[in-house]
């Protein structure tokens, strides 16, 4: 090993140790709470409220959990948990709690504030769900439609009839059975289908890249969490509505109608929306989307954008998760692009959030993005982050948020 390599090694060690020792507290950027998210005529009715009605002990415990107070350890290491810029581990940046349509808790870190969008990553998959619902409601497509009604078969796809057995429903359930390896860690970039799609050989035409993968077996039989399935849903939407309408579809069909402002959805070079990953929203707008979904797609005026019982369909367990062969198991139950608080004994899936009601469901994204909806309590919990670990305790988040209602 050369002297320079040794220097690199010590530089690395010093960087990590230094980051741990020099962490410093950050200030709350915004703490306004009590905003009414009621949608009226597509807009929002905003009125400030205070948090004095909340149980103060519960409020303190909730805040301490999401934004831990820097811990005094010694003179040399004044704190270990405050500085989000250098700290490894959990890095909460936004927390928003909405009860009965009103914000009861809202705090920001890392320079974020209420008018600043945050990348939602795979929370976008659960937003994508609504666009499929809208298309079904408008008669543009059916859940049982074959993907081949919307996408041309070519390459490897042309060699197997299984591909045309994939339905819209299968894609919503992450059950296309297309071979896929989502995210395998830093040293497996070349084995990540997701990385190849966004940044590698698939980037010029992402839908074609996904559809040209082989299949594990018959469609609908294998659960595999896949951003590729979500990409195909957006490709289906493009064909169902046509290029011209697709260009403005996210805004005309949903965002403008429920009062969301400044939403960004990025695209591939063919114009295909990355609605399942590269979507950016202000946290309050994400709360408005959650409220819309909680209300089963019914607008304040009574118009329903989603089919009847769409929320129930979306939060019912994907059939492929029951009794599958275990080769592509996941540690949580999934519905139609939503995650569920459900135990699956046949697949050895434990209840993920035992302190949450059974009807709790969630959207989740990489680096700790979390949107939790509890219909029975009319409660929405948003936690946006830049986690470097996967240890954030969502069950505790729900437990402490529920304590705010007492």
């Amino acid at each position, binding site marked *: 090993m050369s002297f320079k390599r040794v220097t*690199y090694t010590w530089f690395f060690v010093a960087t990590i140790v230094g980051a741990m020792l020099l962490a410093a507290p950050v200030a709350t950027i915004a703490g306004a709470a009590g905003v009414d998210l009621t949608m009226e005529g597509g807009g929002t009715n905003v009125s400030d409220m205070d948090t004095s009605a909340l149980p103060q002990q519960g409020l303190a415990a909730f805040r301490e959990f999401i934004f831990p107070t820097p811990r005094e350890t010694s003179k040399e290491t004044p704190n270990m948990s405050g500085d989000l810029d250098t700290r490894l581990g959990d890095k909460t940046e936004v927390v928003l709690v909405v009860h009965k349509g009103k914000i009861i808790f809202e705090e920001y870190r890392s*320079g974020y504030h209420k008018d*600043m*969008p*945050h990348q939602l990553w795979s929370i976008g998959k659960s937003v994508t769900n609504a666009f499929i619902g809208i298309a079904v409601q408008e008669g543009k497509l059916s859940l049982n439609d074959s993907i081949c009604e919307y996408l041309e078969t070519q390459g490897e796809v042309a060699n197997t009839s299984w591909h045309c057995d994939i339905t819209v429903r299968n894609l919503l359930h992450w059950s296309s059975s297309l071979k896929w390896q989502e995210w395998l*860690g830093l040293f*497996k970039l070349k*084995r990540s289908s997701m990385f190849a799609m966004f940044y590698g050989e698939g980037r010029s035409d992402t839908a074609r890249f996904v559809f040209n*993968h082989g299949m594990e077996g018959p469609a609908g039989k294998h659960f595999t969490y896949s951003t590729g399935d979500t990409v195909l849903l957006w490709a289906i939407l493009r064909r169902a509505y046509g290029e011209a309408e697709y260009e403005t579809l996210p805004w005309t069909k949903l965002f403008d109608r429920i009062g969301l402002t400044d939403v960004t*959805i990025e695209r591939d070079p063919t114009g295909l929306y990355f609605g399942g990953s590269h979507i950016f929203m202000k946290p309050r707008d994400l709360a408005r989307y959650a409220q819309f979904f909680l209300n089963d797609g019914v607008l304040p005026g009574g118009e329903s954008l989603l089919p009847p019982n769409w929320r129930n369909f979306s939060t019912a367990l994907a059939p492929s998760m029951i009794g599958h062969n275990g080769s592509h198991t996941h540690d949580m139950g999934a519905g139609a692009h939503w995650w569920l608080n459900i135990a699956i004994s046949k697949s050895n899936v434990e209840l993920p959030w035992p302190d949450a009601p059974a009807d709790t469901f969630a959207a989740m994204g990489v680096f700790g993005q979390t949107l939790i909806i509890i219909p029975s309590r009319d409660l929405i919990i948003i936690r946006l982050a830049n986690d470097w670990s996967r240890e954030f305790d969502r069950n505790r988040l729900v437990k402490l948020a529920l304590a705010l209602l007492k």
Partner: protein
Amino acid sequence: MKHLALILAALLFTLNFAHGESEFSLSEQVRKEGHLENIDFIVDSDEMEAMKAKFEIEFGAEIIDIGVLTDKRDFKLKYEGTSWAKLSASYYAKEFCSCIFVVAQSEKVCKRNVKQVPLFTGLRIDRKRREIQARSFFAYSYARYENKRHGCILVE
């Protein structure tokens, strides 16, 4: 074998982080041709060192690939069409562009965010054109901000 792979992994991380930090002390500026001609791009001056490092990283990655993880899961897919360096440069260019121009975050926070993927060695921000160029060893990638609704796109 597994211990050897872990040692190599540690070396790999060391090298990556060292290069990641070196963006602040790069000594030489070169001009790229074509549409990048008006933008200074900062690169390492010691190209030979970078070449050796690239080989080491690719080799180390393959060893780790074989030695550490394949006994835990059966990874059936591997994409050979794009190098590690190009993947990381593309990730860095695209996601840094979104962080800076869509979210309007600070450079400090954006650098922190994208460093979750290693192999980054240099970047160039053109705020006037709203473009980001990223370099990972000999691979370059370029992302451009389109507009408010459509954010950034990976151009090359």
